[in-house]
């Protein structure tokens, strides 16, 4: 059971209905549900997109692309049908926010999809959930069924004469499918290999038709924006970073959890106030600010606002909003290795640099961590990561390379301490016992 954690600083927008029984469609309607969709029908596509642009909502999947602009790229006229695709393949380590939305407020996603469909002229939407989220798929299927029963989906939604169909869909275990073009391939029943771009999905997407692909949180936010107005929503956040975000706090914290906080919320405060600080009075060692693919920050680098621009300026990325806190007991080589093990496991294998690079790095990091490394290995790890960066077929290679480069750069001494047969100084590290005690 996923649940939201509260704190006085929390601003409930997306999480407004969490824990209030909104999986029930009637309850959802009581809680202002499907008002935004009706309003969007009245507003018309152009006004909806204008509202979205005014909200400064940026994609919640990780890349932070302005949602309103994304929608506006879809051509008005198209020979092929247009589609909306919800990316609910939440798989980036440290990210567990979409799970909450599907579990507590599935109709907000449906409503978001309907509004997106109205805005770009699509008649069909797909809600793709990662395979592991089977219980959420059941919730989603029920929600879609209920929405059809109410006439919110179907040939004549809300009696407007407009048609819109929604289908939920399950994956079967693949991080790479979270990449939007791989997501389309997977939905088409193929291996999750990304597509060559251009053409971009907004022009040629699912089944060759123009397609809007948005993260689940992004689309769940949409009804709230339409309901409260884009400008109102934008006010909550910082400049060019509208609204709130579900931040997933994990790692060495007293109170890990998912918190909805305004964009630009101070990271240090997030760790020490919201997350309750580090257990046992131990010292902070590092923070991964936006999911496992984002470069690590040192304790002296965390006095920043958590929005796309400020974290970028600090040399990392806001990413998926998964904040991982590492205390002094963590071996950074082991952490780098575990991160690389993940990317090696999830690389689709399509391009040389990602397929070979992640595997090579995993092997090298394993050896270095075990004490089998020599000085040259550290340079080589950096060399490999730098030569993957920006050269892979899709961003997964970058996701593997970026944190690795940062680990080596910021914790080189720690790597050196492992070399020449010395092995891991943190062997049988006590932090686990501390946590589990």
């Amino acid at each position, binding site marked *: *059971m996923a649940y939201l954690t509260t704190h006085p600083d929390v601003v409930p927008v997306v999480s407004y209905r969490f824990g209030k029984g909104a999986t029930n469609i009637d309850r959802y309607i009581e809680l202002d549900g499907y008002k935004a969709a009706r309003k969007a029908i009245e507003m018309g596509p152009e006004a909806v997109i204008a509202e979205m642009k005014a909200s400064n909502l940026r994609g919640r999947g990780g890349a932070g692309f302005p949602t309103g602009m994304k929608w506006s790229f879809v051509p008005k006229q198209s020979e092929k049908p247009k589609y909306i695709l919800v990316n609910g393949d939440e798989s*980036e*380590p440290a990210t567990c926010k979409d799970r909450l939305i599907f579990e507590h407020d599935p109709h907000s996603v449906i409503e978001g999809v309907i509004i997106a469909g109205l805005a770009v002229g699509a008649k069909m939407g797909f809600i793709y959930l990662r*395979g592991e989220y089977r219980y959420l798929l059941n919730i989603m299927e029920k929600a879609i069924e209920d929405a059809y029963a109410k006439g919110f989906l179907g040939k004549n939604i809300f009696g407007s004469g407009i048609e819109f169909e929604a289908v939920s869909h399950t994956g079967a275990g693949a991080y790479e499918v979270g990449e939007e073009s791989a997501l389309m391939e997977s939905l088409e*029943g*193929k291996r999750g290999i990304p597509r060559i771009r251009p053409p971009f999905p907004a022009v040629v997407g699912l089944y060759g038709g123009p397609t809007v692909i948005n993260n689940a949180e992004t689309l769940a936010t949409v009804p709230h924006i339409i309901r409260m107005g884009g400008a109102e929503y934008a006010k909550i956040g910082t400049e060019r970073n509208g609204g709130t975000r579900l931040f997933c706090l994990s790692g060495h914290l007293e109170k*890990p959890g998912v918190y909805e906080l305004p964009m630009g919320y101070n990271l240090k405060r997030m760790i020490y106030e919201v997350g309750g600080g580090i257990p046992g009075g131990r010292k902070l060692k590092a923070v991964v600010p936006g999911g496992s693919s984002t470069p690590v920050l040192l304790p002296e680098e965390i006095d920043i606002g958590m929005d796309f621009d400020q974290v970028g300026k600090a040399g990392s990325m806001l990413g998926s909003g998964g904040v991982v806190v590492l205390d002094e007991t963590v071996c950074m080589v082991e952490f780098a290795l575990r991160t690389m093990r993940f990317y090696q496991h999830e690389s689709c294998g399509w391009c040389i640099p990602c397929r070979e690079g992640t595997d090579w790095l995993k092997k090298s990091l394993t050896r270095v961590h075990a004490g089998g490394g020599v000085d040259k290995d550290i340079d080589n790890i950096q060399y490999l990561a730098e030569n993957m960066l920006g050269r892979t077929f899709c961003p997964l290679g970058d996701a593997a390379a970026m944190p690795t480069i940062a680990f080596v750069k910021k914790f080189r001494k720690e790597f050196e301490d492992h070399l020449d047969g010395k092995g891991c100084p943190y062997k049988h590290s006590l932090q*686990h*016992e501390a946590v589990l005690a």
Partner: protein
Amino acid sequence: MATETTIFSPELAARFDKLVTLYPVRRSALVPMLLYAQDEVGYISKAVVAEVARRVGVLENDVVSVLSYYSMLRTQPIGKFNVQVCTNICCMLRGGNELFEHCKKRLGIGHKGTTADGVFSLEEVECIGACSWAPAVQVNYDFHENLTPESMDKVLEEYREKAQK
């Protein structure tokens, strides 16, 4: 399709009949179909591949190519309850590795092993989306979070009892 012989239960066969009609192309039903078939059959046997290929209208080696891409799909039978321990970064920081070691010892099997009585299989898995409630385990599709070795034992015990029913 409905009139042809099927290796699936009537309910699942009916579900598949409908599933292929939901999408603009039949093939879109492939991945869900494989997962649902695995849920019923226990794994993706050659017979499953053959029938699914026929249902979505692709070659069998194409189905194999697709299924081998997805980490949840398997071509060998496993135990009744698949204990999937996450050891990815967030779980690792909060004892995921130790939990996995504990499960190994408790079940007497290793990664991708199955107990002799066929009740449990064990698997070390990547992030399952329970980062803020780490460490976490998924048994089949059910999440168990904020675990300790002691609470893990209770979880295993519950499933063992379920298996005996």
